[in-house]
């Protein structure tokens, strides 16, 4: 068994938790803004984020991941999801698992059990990053303003995810559904992205959803 220190890292629900955009008071903006907004932003807050590393070509690894998560290990630039669970390729030996709030400890234990004896790593990075969801007909326009990466559906179909340069910084762009995109951002950059996205979305109309 592993010598890694595996423990529940999330404090209980009785402990007050502030999201990376707590100071922006997004709930005060719910339901306001233009009718038929071009862009709707939703803070997918306080989710579980796990970094998983292992040998992609080892069938014991890919099989173990499937056993633990019910998801196939995605190949380069892919993201697969089932319900609220998603698994994204980050590099040839690295993946990002995002799960509903509070499930990360159980999932880590399932992964470690299914992958016991293999050369792997599971790290809880929930505190370091967060997820913003953008949906609506004008999201692609906002992305085109922000990144040099080609976000046309021919190059960026649903199910693709890339880490790239965005508005002079870096983040991960994930295409989850036709008009739905996700940005995985560093927690410490949350305010910067919030300001940037407000500015870039203004001409299309921005709404904030719960």
């Amino acid at each position: 068994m592993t010598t890694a220190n595996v423990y529940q890292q999330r404090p209980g629900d009785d402990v007050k938790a502030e999201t990376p955009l707590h100071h922006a008071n997004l709930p005060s903006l719910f339901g306001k803004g233009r009718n038929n907004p071009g862009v709707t932003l939703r803070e997918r807050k306080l989710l579980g984020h796990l970094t998983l590393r292992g040998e992609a070509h080892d069938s014991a690894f890919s099989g173990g991941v499937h056993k633990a998560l019910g998801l196939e290990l995605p190949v380069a630039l892919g993201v697969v999801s089932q319900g609220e669970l998603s698994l994204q390729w980050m590099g040839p030996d690295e993946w990002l698992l995002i799960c509903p709030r509070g499930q990360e400890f159980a999932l880590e234990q399932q992964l470690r059990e299914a992958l016991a004896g293999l050369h792997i790593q599971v790290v809880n990075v929930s505190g370091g990053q967060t997820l913003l969801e953008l949906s609506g007909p004008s999201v692609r326009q906002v992305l085109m303003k922000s990144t040099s990466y080609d976000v046309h559906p021919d190059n960026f179909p649903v199910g693709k995810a890339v880490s790239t340069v965005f508005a002079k910084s870096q983040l991960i762009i994930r295409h989850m559904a036709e008009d739905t995109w996700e940005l995985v951002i560093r927690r410490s950059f949350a305010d910067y992205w919030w300001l940037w996205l407000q500015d870039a979305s203004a001409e299309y109309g921005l709404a904030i959803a719960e």
Partner: protein
Amino acid sequence: MLQIFCPHCAELRSEEEFHASGQAHIPRPLDPAACTDEQWGTYMFFRDNPRGIHHELWIHAAGCRQYFNATRDTVTYEIFETYKIGEKPQVTAKPAGAVPEAAAREE
């Protein structure tokens, strides 16, 4: 802006996602303690500075964060190929017009 092919992401990506990290294919001495000062100094500090084809180490810093190698012309900046660490370059010929090393020394 250059487009560079990342052998891990398997697609062309914008130059701003990458960083160059110097000369490629420099093996670390297996037993550093057995090296002379000159051998260790050569490994540590001395790098080729060719005019023409050069094999370089690059990292896809904003993407998959993997190192890989690139064969690049230091005069034209043309990148002939990129390949994974551990693989051998396909392009090694001297570019037309380059002065052979021996000839250059005789001058």
